[in-house]
C-alpha cells in the first residue's frame, strides 16, 4: 500500500476553522509536485432546527429558531415572524409594526457588520494576512488603532441598544409576533437612540473610508485575492432598490445579466434547488435554470450591492455608485470587495436607523393584524450574511408546525466559500512550505463571507489549528497542533 512518503501527497486539515453555527473545517489535498488537487470547506455539525420545530406551535417559531445563532438571531426572529405573518393571514402589517421590525433589522445589520469588519476582519486588513499572530487580533487593533477600536465597540453597542428597544432584549428577544410586533417604541427609547444617530452615521462614513483606503492600497493583489466570477442572489424592492427587510428575489450573472427578477418568496422552490454532497452537512443551493454545476451563487453584502439598482439613503447611494464604477457598472466579483460592500451597508443601516427614529409611526399602538389562516408560510429576509429563507407548513387544526425548511445565508454561500478556499490555496499554497501565515490566507478568503465563523477563529488571534500530513492509506505521517 502506498504511503504518504511514497506518493508525496499531503492532506492539510484546518480543524476547526471556527463555529459556523456549529463546526467547520478545511481540507486541502496537495500532490507530490506541490499542486493543490482539491480544497474543501466542510460543515461537519448537524443543526437540526428544522426537526426541533416540528410539533411546536407556529407562534413559537420566531423565538425558537433564532436560537440557531447568537450573532444574528434577529434575522431568524424576523424571517420566521414574516413567515408566520403569512400563516395568520397578515398580508399587510400596520405601518408601526413594519417600521419597528425594520428598525430592529437595521440595528441588527449595523451591529453585525461593525462587529465583523472591525473586530474580525480588520486585523488581517490592517496588519497583513501573515503578520505575527500576536499582533493579528482584536487586541492588536486596540493597541495600534485605539480610536477605531473604541468606535467599533460603541457602534456594536448602539446596534444592540436598537435591538433591545424593539425586541425587548439585546439577544434573543421576542418583539416580532405573528402579524406584527408586541410593543411600540417609547418616546424615551426613541430619544435615547436618537441622540447618537448622527454619530453612528459619521462613524460609518469613517469606517467605510478606512476600508476603501486599505482596499485601494492593496491594489491588484487584494482585487485578485480569492476572486472568481459568480452569479449573485438577493432580494430587492419592486423598483430595484436595495431592501434588507423585504422584497422579491433577483439573480444576476457575473456580467450583470438578469437571470430572474421579482420572484415572490412563495415561489423560491421553483427557482432554487438544494444539492446534497456526501462530505458536508451543509447543502449546496443552486439556481435551477442553470443546473447544479453552474447555478451556484453568492449572497450577502457584495451580492446585494451588485444586484440593486440604487440605495434609498443618500450617503450610501453615493458610495454604491463609486463602488460600482470600479466594475464599469458590471458586478464586482472580487472576494475582498465583500468588506467594502459590507461597510456601504453599515452606512445604509445607520442612515435608515436615523430616518426611522424620526418617524412618529413608531409610537403608534396599532401593532397587530390578522386575517384568514393558511397552512403554509414562506418568507425571505436579507440577514447580514446574506439571503435567508424560512418555510413552514402548519396543521391549521392543531396550530402545530408539521414541516420546516430553512436555507440560511452561510448555506447560500457554500459553493462560493469552497471556490474561495480553492482559489486561495492555489494562489498561495502551491509549491510552498506551509506556514501559519499562509494558512491564514485560506481563512481570510472564508472570512470575507462572514459566515459566522470568523468569531471563533479570530477573536483571540490564535485559531485552533490542526495540520495533518496524511498518507493515502489514512496514516498520519506528521501533525502540528496549535491553539
Amino acid at each position: 500500500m502506498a504511503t504518504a512518503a511514497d506518493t508525496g501527497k499531503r492532506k492539510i486539515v484546518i480543524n476547526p476553522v471556527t463555529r459556523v453555527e456549529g463546526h467547520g473545517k478545511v481540507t486541502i489535498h496537495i500532490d507530490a509536485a506541490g499542486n493543490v488537487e482539491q480544497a474543501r470547506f466542510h460543515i461537519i455539525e448537524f443543526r437540526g432546527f428544522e426537526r426541533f420545530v416540528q410539533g411546536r406551535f407556529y407562534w413559537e417559531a420566531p423565538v425558537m429558531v433564532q436560537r440557531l445563532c447568537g450573532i444574528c438571531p434577529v434575522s431568524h426572529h424576523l424571517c420566521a415572524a414574516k413567515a408566520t405573518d403569512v400563516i395568520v393571514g397578515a398580508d399587510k402589517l400596520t405601518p408601526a409594526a413594519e417600521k419597528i421590525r425594520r428598525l430592529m433589522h437595521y440595528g441588527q445589520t449595523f451591529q453585525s457588520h461593525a462587529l465583523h469588519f472591525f473586530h474580525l476582519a480588520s486585523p488581517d486588513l490592517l496588519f497583513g494576512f501573515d503578520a505575527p499572530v500576536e499582533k493579528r487580533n482584536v487586541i492588536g487593533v486596540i493597541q495600534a488603532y485605539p480610536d477605531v477600536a473604541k468606535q467599533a465597540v460603541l457602534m456594536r453597542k448602539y446596534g444592540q441598544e436598537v435591538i433591545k428597544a424593539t425586541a425587548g432584549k439585546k439577544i434573543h428577544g421576542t418583539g416580532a409576533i405573528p402579524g406584527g410586533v408586541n410593543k411600540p417604541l417609547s418616546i424615551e427609547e426613541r430619544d435615547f437612540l436618537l441622540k447618537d444617530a448622527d454619530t453612528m452615521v459619521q462613524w460609518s462614513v469613517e469606517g467605510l473610508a478606512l476600508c476603501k483606503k486599505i482596499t485601494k492600497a492593496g491594489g491588484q493583489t487584494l482585487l485578485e485575492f480569492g476572486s472568481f466570477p459568480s452569479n449573485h442572489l438577493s432580494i430587492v424592492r419592486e423598483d430595484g432598490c436595495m431592501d434588507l427587510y423585504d422584497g422579491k428575489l433577483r439573480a444576476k450573472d457575473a456580467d450583470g445579466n438578469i437571470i430572474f427578477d421579482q420572484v415572490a418568496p412563495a415561489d423560491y422552490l421553483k427557482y432554487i434547488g438544494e444539492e446534497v454532497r456526501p462530505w458536508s452537512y451543509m447543502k449546496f443551493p443552486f439556481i435551477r435554470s442553470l443546473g447544479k454545476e453552474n447555478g451556484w451563487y453568492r449572497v450577502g453584502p457584495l451580492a446585494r450591492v451588485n444586484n440593486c439598482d440604487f440605495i434609498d439613503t443618500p450617503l450610501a447611494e453615493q458610495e454604491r455608485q463609486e463602488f460600482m464604477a470600479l466594475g464599469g457598472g458590471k458586478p464586482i466579483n472580487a472576494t475582498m470587495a465583500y468588506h467594502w460592500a459590507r461597510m456601504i451597508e453599515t452606512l445604509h443601516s445607520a442612515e435608515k436607523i436615523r430616518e426611522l427614529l424620526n418617524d412618529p409611526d413608531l409610537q403608534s399602538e396599532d401593532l397587530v393584524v390578522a386575517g384568514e389562516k393558511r397552512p403554509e408560510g414562506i418568507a425571505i429576509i436579507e440577514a447580514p450574511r446574506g439571503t435567508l429563507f424560512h418555510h413552514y407548513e402548519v396543521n391549521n387544526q392543531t396550530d402545530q408546525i408539521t414541516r420546516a425548511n430553512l436555507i440560511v445565508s452561510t448555506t447560500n454561500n457554500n459553493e462560493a466559500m469552497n471556490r474561495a478556499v480553492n482559489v486561495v490555496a492555489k494562489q498561495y499554497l502551491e509549491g510552498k512550505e506551509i506556514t501559519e501565515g499562509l494558512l491564514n490566507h485560506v481563512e481570510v478568503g472564508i472570512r470575507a463571507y462572514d459566515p459566522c465563523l470568523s468569531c471563533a477563529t479570530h477573536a483571540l488571534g490564535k485559531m485552533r489549528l490542526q495540520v495533518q500530513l496524511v498518507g493515502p492509506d489514512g496514516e498520519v505521517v506528521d501533525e502540528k497542533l496549535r491553539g
Partner: protein
Amino acid sequence: MSDKPVTFTIDGVEITAKAGQTILQAADDAGIYIPRLCYHPSLPPGGHCRLCTVKINGRPASSCTFPADEGLVVENDTEELNDHRRRIVEMLFVEGNHYCPTCEHSGNCELQAMAYRLGLLAPTLPYFRCERELDASHKDVYVDRDRCILCGRCARASREVDHKVVFGFEGRGVHKRISVDAPHNLGETNLAAADKAAEVCPTGCIMLKRKGFAIPVGQRKYDHEPIGSEIERSRSAK
C-alpha cells in the same frame, strides 16, 4: 380549626389569623410570603408540592393545609427550609423538560420565578430527559406535559370552580401524569377557554393558544420583582 381569631408567630413576628384560616392564608394577609406552587387563592389547598412546608412548633408541615391556631411558633424564612425548597424546585426542573429560553410563559412562570427567588442558578441533579406528550387537539387550549409539575391546580379548578372533571391524575410515581377525561385527548373534553382550569397553571403546561409572546419583555409579571413581592409589599405598606 379555631372559630375565633387566633394569634401566633412566624419567624418571631406576631400575627393574627381570622377564624378558619390556614397558616399560609394568615401569612399572606400579614404580608409574610411563604413560597408555594400548588396553592392558588381561588382553590382549596392541595398540599402536593410541599414548597410551603414550614416548621410548626419544631415539626415540618405544609402551611397551605395546616390551620392557624393560638400560640403556634412557625419558622418560615430559614436557611434550612429554603435549602429544602430549592432542592424541591430543582427536582421539579430535572423531572420535566423545562426549556425556558423558548417557552412563551417565561417571565410569567411561577416555577421559573420561584427558582430565581430561591437562588437556583443551575441544576446539580441529572435531568430525567423523559418523554412527555404535547396535546394540541383542543382548538383553544393546549397541554404541554413537558412543563407539568403535577401541582393539580387544573384538576381542582375543573372540579371545584368549573364543576367539570376535565383534568385528573393517572399513573403512579415517576409515571404519574395529568390526564384528561376523554378517550384520547383534550379536544374531546368539554373544556372551554374561559374555564378556570385553563387559567390557573403555574407553568406553561396548560396555556391558551395563539397568545404566544404578546406580552413584551419588561412587562411580564416577574420581569422586575421576585415572586411573592406583591404579598410582601402589603406588609411594608402597613
